[in-house]
């Protein structure tokens, strides 16, 4: 399960960022922010012509000593980042993919809300509870 989940706007500012409360929140913010370097590089590496066929899931962005950072980019260049504890070896690539898919679906629901203003931070209860379900449960 994730320790931090973030949604980043096309312009690279955070739309939503949530981390496990017990740990240093700021550290996760930095982790997510620095991971954008790799995301940008990966997006630009895919040629313009191939942009349509590009896979949305970017895979493991970079491993740190303590965390693994995974990325996903929608066609509208909105980025999802999931940070997982390195010690959590039970998570397979497939599970990460399905987490991203769930996140994407829920994000699409948010976007479909006529009262949501694209570019604003996400303040949806449904989205929140979906993210909570994917986070490491802190007892």
């Amino acid at each position, binding site marked *: 399960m994730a320790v931090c989940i973030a949604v980043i706007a096309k*312009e*690279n500012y955070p739309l939503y960022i949530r981390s496990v409360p017990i740990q240093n929140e*700021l550290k996760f913010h930095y982790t997510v922010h620095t991971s954008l*370097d*790799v995301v940008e590089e990966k997006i630009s590496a895919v040629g313009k012509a191939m942009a349509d066929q590009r896979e949305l899931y970017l895979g493991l962005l970079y491993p740190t*000593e303590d965390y693994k950072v995974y990325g996903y980019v929608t066609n509208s260049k909105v980025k999802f980042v999931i940070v997982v504890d390195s010690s959590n070896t039970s998570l397979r690539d497939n599970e990460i993919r399905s987490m991203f898919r769930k996140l994407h679906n829920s994000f699409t629901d948010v976007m479909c809300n006529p009262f949501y203003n694209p*570019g604003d931070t996400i303040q949806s209860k449904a989205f929140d509870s979906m993210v909570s379900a994917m986070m490491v449960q802190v007892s």
Partner: protein
Amino acid sequence: MMSPTQWDLPPELCCRPMAFVALTGLDVTYNAIHRAIWDAFCANRRADRVPISFKVLPGDHEYPKCRTKRTSYEWYIPKGILKTGWMNKHLNLVPALLVLFYELDWDDAVWKEKQSECATKVEIVRTSLQGRNTKVAVVLIQKKTPLPPGEDLVASERAASLCNACDLSGKSLFVLPHTDHLVGYIIRLENAFYEHAQTYYYTEIRRVKSHKEFLNKTTHQLLFVRHQFKIAFFSELKQDTQNSLKYYRTAYSLVHELRTHETNMLEIKAMAGFINYKICRLCFQHNTPLDAIAQFRKHIDLCKKKIGSAELAFEHTAWMSKQFQSFGDLFDEAIKLGLTAIQTQNPGFYYQQAAYYAQERKQQATHLCAHEASVSSPSPDHLETSSGALDFYGQRAWRQGHQSIDPPHMEKEKGGILALQMKEKDVPHSELIIALLSNAVAQFKKYKCPRMKSHLMVQMGEEYNHAKDYTKALKLLDYVMCDYRTERWWSLLTSILSTALRCSYLMAHVKDYITYSMELVGRASTLREEQKSRIEKNLIKVLMNEVPEAEPDCDQASAKAAQALWSDRMSLAGSNVFTIEVQDYVPFVQCKAKFLSPSFHVDDPVQLHVYLRADCPHPVRFSKLCVSLSNQEYNQLCVVEEPCKSQDILEASSQENMCLVPGKTRIYSFKFVAKTEDVGKKIEITAVDLMLGSDNGRCVFLNWRGGGGDAASSQEALLAARSFKSRGRVPEQHVEWDNVSIQANTMIISRIPKISVQLSHEPPALNNEMYRITVSIQSNEETVTKDVKLTAGLKPGQDANLTQSTHVTLNGLEMCDESHPALLPDIAIGDLQPGEKVEKCLYVRCVTTGTRIFLFHVAYALSTKVEGKDITCKCHKDETVTIETIVPFEVAVKFVSTKFEHLDRVYVDIPFLLMTDILSASPWPLHLVTSQLQLAPTMAAMDQPQSQVEQVMLQTGECASECFSLQCPPVLNGTSSVASGQYLISWKRKSSCADAPVVTTVVTLPHVMVETIPLYVHAELPSFGRVRESMPVRYHIQNRTGLVQDVEMSVEPSDAFMFSGLKQVRLRILPGAEQEMLYNFYPLMAGYQSLPQLNISLLRFPAVSGQLLRRFLPSRIFVKPQGRQADDASIAAA
């Protein structure tokens, strides 16, 4: 450079091991030959030379003593894994090969003595290397070039005897002639040495391996590691890196098989670190970086949890930090040698992790080493050893060689730990961390990770802050702050700003302090309300020139020092005015300025609104708001000012004009009358300044460049535009902040003219005529319009050729020419009373056809009152008209014979006709005044030609024709083309007035071919005949040549006529003379009848045919029937 610390890897581990060969018997100081030999060994050791490290040693040098070899390991308990001196011993002290240099030629006079001296020297060396397997070789330095092997019998004999005397094998004796090819000989020599060294290390490996059978797994575990390491190291010396790597890997797994407990944890980690370093190094050397990375990951995973003593936890983190750092160094070195790294796998990550552990170490150190000042280092110093260094790597100074689980002396152990903690206290942690971070920054910069780089720079800044180097901290933080601001990561920005605020507080940097506070209480900050409130209160204190309260998380001593600094600042007079350019920040007051319209007429006041809004928790009072405009003369009109007393800042009342209530938008409107000089110019808001504080305390100008807005506002405006809220109706009066858009410039445009300009004319214009355009100007102003001026003519900016071919004048009585311009500027009209109307006629002459645009620009001045101010406005009105110019008529010219037959050439002295047709193309009736024929000298008129079209009116499509009878005087040669002359038509429009000038159009007549003929015939006959009435016909035949012509003539019979005269005759005509032939024709039938054909042939000019001549003669005649008696009326009718 920092001095090496306990954690640095020993240099003998990090170097590349090379076979060690010692050279003796060389006197490199005093003997030039020896010096040259030594230099040849040392200099230019490039990659293509064998890897040997040479050293010159004296003959009596003492080598490390070899301990007696152990015969049994049964009772031996090892004291540690690896002795600290071992690697150095084999790299630099114990040679693989010892080479004795000796000057001796084969034919030396005292050969025997020399031989025995050499043998003695060899013996001395052998003794000092007692017990070692080191090989000894002898090199004889000879002056003579040796003969090829086998030829010099003396040499081979003496060589054998020398080998015998020195107890050397033949392979160990070398000869070095110092001749021209010294380097070549040296290279051959060292290759031979290298082989010997290889053998030596091979035997060493064998020797170490042979110990293995004596060892048992319970007591000799340490020896397994030691021996494996030694084998690997010898293999490396032997340059057998593949096997070396294999042995190191075995050694590595053996290390981790050792029983670990608190007392030997450090030793195990130290050895594991060494072996890991060697493995990674070799992997990079073998160009298998992924193996290196995998090994390193394994190493870290295995060792991460081996913390050891909790009281010395910082040792573990220090060691971890070093592991990462040395791997980063290895990686970086490999890159320098050609390895390519990628964004997600580069040395930066290792340096970053090293920095992370260094930070951990620092935290643990501050936590574990927080002893009271009274606690001093225990004496005697537990960290001192008798030799000054440790015997084994990774052991404790106070219990060297101790290998059991529990420490031998509890008391000593405690003292030792305390001593280590005291020592740790003096470590410059921040310095280490910053060095690692900056290494990482350099790497991430190289591998395109700007955000990672910024993050590390933030960490560096924070570390500088901890190290109390606030200036450097602020420099770094300031540098990255804008990156986070533009990327809109407010949470991160807030954290950086908080650090920066603390730094500026501690340094008492007033301006920085204000700048950071301003942003921290603003909307970009993610701080909680109470934090913002605290910062705002501090900010107000600073504005009142008081000392702000300390920032949280400042240690007491620093806070105290800062208080003192602030107090000093307070007493310091002057320099209390600060201007902060807030454009690039997100300050707590937002500002948007806009002109109410993108343009203002000069007679309307310019209106300008400044919207202000505060985002801080408490209301703010300001004392001045001023707008700077591009024309500074208006600045004084755009100021709101109300000096406040110092207590006003504290108790800002929301009712006041100069008070900004959080979340409420305040509008300040300004109005001014633009200067008439600014008409047509742009007025721009260059800056908006908001003054906070007061003159007697501190005052701060928040300065917005242009019409306001800050680092965040453009994005906010974009979002607001997208928002569904913006589409809803907003009640009047209520200003939605997001919907206010900045309008930083406006145009001052001239007053709307109240004047009418009308044009009357009759298009199209005719080519070359004086085309009349009547301009009528009527004033609809309420006051007198002064100084009315008309500029009229061709509108500038059209085809340049039009300017040359268009002429404008006011005088319609004269034809205008090139001297007249295409545009008449500033025709003075004078003043106009309200309602007065003026007409002006303008004549345009267009020399070429085509379309032209004409401009009529009426300018005038007018006095008016705006906002109680008298101003003189200049107004103008433009009218344009497009006029087509066409040709008035087409002229067609043709040459015909007197019989109206078309002529393509004319004959000398024979009359012909010139016919002109004037076809009107003008939609308006034309008045042809007259026409004139101007003949060229090559043409002559038969009579006085008079115009036949004088005073003719031509309607559209009508045609006027003229006919002139002409003839050509003789030409020089038989045939030539001659000019005919010109045809002049004078005309004007029918509608133009009587005194309008007449336009003369000149038509150049075409050239015509003139031909001379030798004979000319013409007939003289009545215009008609009558049946049965004889009519006389006289043919004149002229000879136009200078020769006598023989002419044969005949008349052919015709059915319609009877005739009398010579039917066939042959005659001679003298030059220039004329022969007359008379016939009487008697018509027989009525109607058009062919005359009897006259055939003429010239005997001298067969080319001149009868056909040609017949053209000059009539071929038919009208014959009237025989009427009753002559009837004059009927004749007239015919």
